């Protein structure tokens, strides 16, 4: 497992980030902290996906200076970075922001109602 460190180091970082996020979602008492953990969690997964697409020594996935030229250009797959993970992650980022928006809205609604964003206090107040 350790010997993969040199070739897979970004996956290691991804794993640690994910775990940091997960821990903070599970164990933190403050709802805002939970949300921060959630963001880290999502972003770790995005890091993982982007790592899939990376190719050493390849170009960014934009054909330079090719506007409107069409088919004349011969393009080789190995020369460009795999665009598919990027596409997927664009979607995932936007989804992540939308999640953040909704959860923050809920957070504010909760704060308005219970005057706190600590989980144990909210539960306490709900049981009253």
């Amino acid at each position, binding site marked *: 497992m350790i010997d993969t460190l040199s070739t897979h180091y970004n996956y290691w970082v991804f794993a640690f980030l*994910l775990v940091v996020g*997960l821990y903070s*979602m599970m164990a933190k008492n403050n*709802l805002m902290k*939970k949300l921060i953990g*959630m963001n880290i*969690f*999502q972003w770790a*997964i995005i890091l*993982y*996906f982007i790592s*899939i697409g990376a190719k050493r020594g390849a170009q960014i996935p934009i054909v330079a200076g090719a506007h409107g030229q069409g088919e004349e250009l011969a393009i080789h797959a190995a020369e460009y970075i795999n665009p*598919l*993970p990027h596409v*997927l992650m664009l*979607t*995932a980022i936007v*989804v992540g922001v*939308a*999640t953040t928006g*909704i*959860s923050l809205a*809920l*957070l504010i*609604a*909760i704060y308005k*109602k*219970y005057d706190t964003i600590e989980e144990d206090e*909210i*539960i306490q107040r*709900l049981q009253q």
Partner: protein
Amino acid sequence: MIEQFPALIVVTPLIFAFLVTMAGLWNRKLCFPLVLIALSASVVFAGGMLAVVISGDKPIHYYLGGWAPPWGIEYVIDHLNALILVSVAVISLLVAVYAQKTLEQEIHESKLPQFYTLFLLQITGLFGITATGDMFNLYVLLEIASFSAYAIIAMGERGADFAAFRYVLFGTIGACAYLLGTGYLYIITGSLNMADLTPLLPHLFYSKALLVGFAFLIVGIGIKMGIFPLHIWLPDAYTLAPSAVSALLAPLFTKVGAYVIIRIMFTVFDPSFAIKLYPVTDVLGWLAAIGILFACVMALAQSDFKRMLCYVIVAEMGYILIGLASANRFGLTGAILHIVNDMFMMACLFTVAGAIFYQTGTRNIYQFRYLHRTMPIISALFIVGALSVVGIPPLCGFFSKWYLILGAIQAKQWGLVVVMLLSSLLMAILFFRVIEIVYFAPPTDQRHAHHKHGKTGIVMDNVPLSMVIPMVLIGIGIILLGIFSGVIIKHVIAFAIPSM
């Protein structure tokens, strides 16, 4: 036109969602008719596709954007998801009709257009999850469904916002775990299309990455469908949500999750992966067994009717997993049949809970004393739903249970058989407890009064017809599904089961 149905069924509710928003700015009264139009159209589309699939015996492939898979996104409608689509469409239409009145009571009028928008988006998501043949597309649709679920759940009573917040956390973990699993599949195969993955995966069955990916997929969907240890968010969220919302989400969302698990375990992955190579089905089976017993006991401890039903959902999910765990034709037939049956049963019970709440304003079962005097039809529907869950033939719940038991026997999983039988007894206790209160426990002050006048007239329900009629239709659906379960199995489910 019929070849366009796979796209139409997903897009129609979507477009109508925007129309509802726009119409809501102009005139709020327009929203509800628009919802009805969209959902009726969906029923037509779904029914049409089911008819085509049954008559043609081969799946409908639909290439969105005209790009062939695996490059483009493909919607595949086969026997399995055509059946699920029809059930989802029918239930959502009925629940939408039912929802109108309860919403007037529980949600402020100015929020109705937004509510209906999210309602439609929710259904869009469910249709999409069912219809799609692309792993990533499923993720996006899962998120649509979840987002709308978060928001409409939070509209419920006190504590609903906190329940929704926890649901957001768990739901995000679930969706992200699913996404990560998809990522693992993508990194080792390079494809996202389900049909394209199927032949690619068997070469990689011994890859550790594949196993991890599979685990994440199952955990992710498991959170969304609320299987046993991952169900923690479910009871709160579904209990505190508005009646209409729990009547929509409780039957549909969890069952669609179950569909996705079947799809992944048996279509995307070869059945041998989860059965022979790794003891996934066994693990799921034991989780299901523990979960069923746990959920039954928890349900017994509840006095809140809806919360009790929420635990029943967890138990029903366990039944479906038992079907998967036995991993043979009977078990899968039972599981698929149970998905459909359970949609109707849960829709019935949750609409009943909503209707009782609508009229009496309580969900505490100990306050349901002699409810059948004031709500005869609703009480009768409750009996139908309850007996079906308990597993009394000829109601539909029995038949799926029967195939599940057959499956477990064939797989020689005696423990699971015992759990199923035991749980149906626990369910009987659970529901007869309520039936007793509703029918045979007169309020103490009236006990002698009605003995004298044996012929007191029955007061009819105050629940409006627009609520009662969909509920009655769901009740009739339960009976018909039971009687015609053979037809469904013969013409649909028999083709939906992968060869083992």
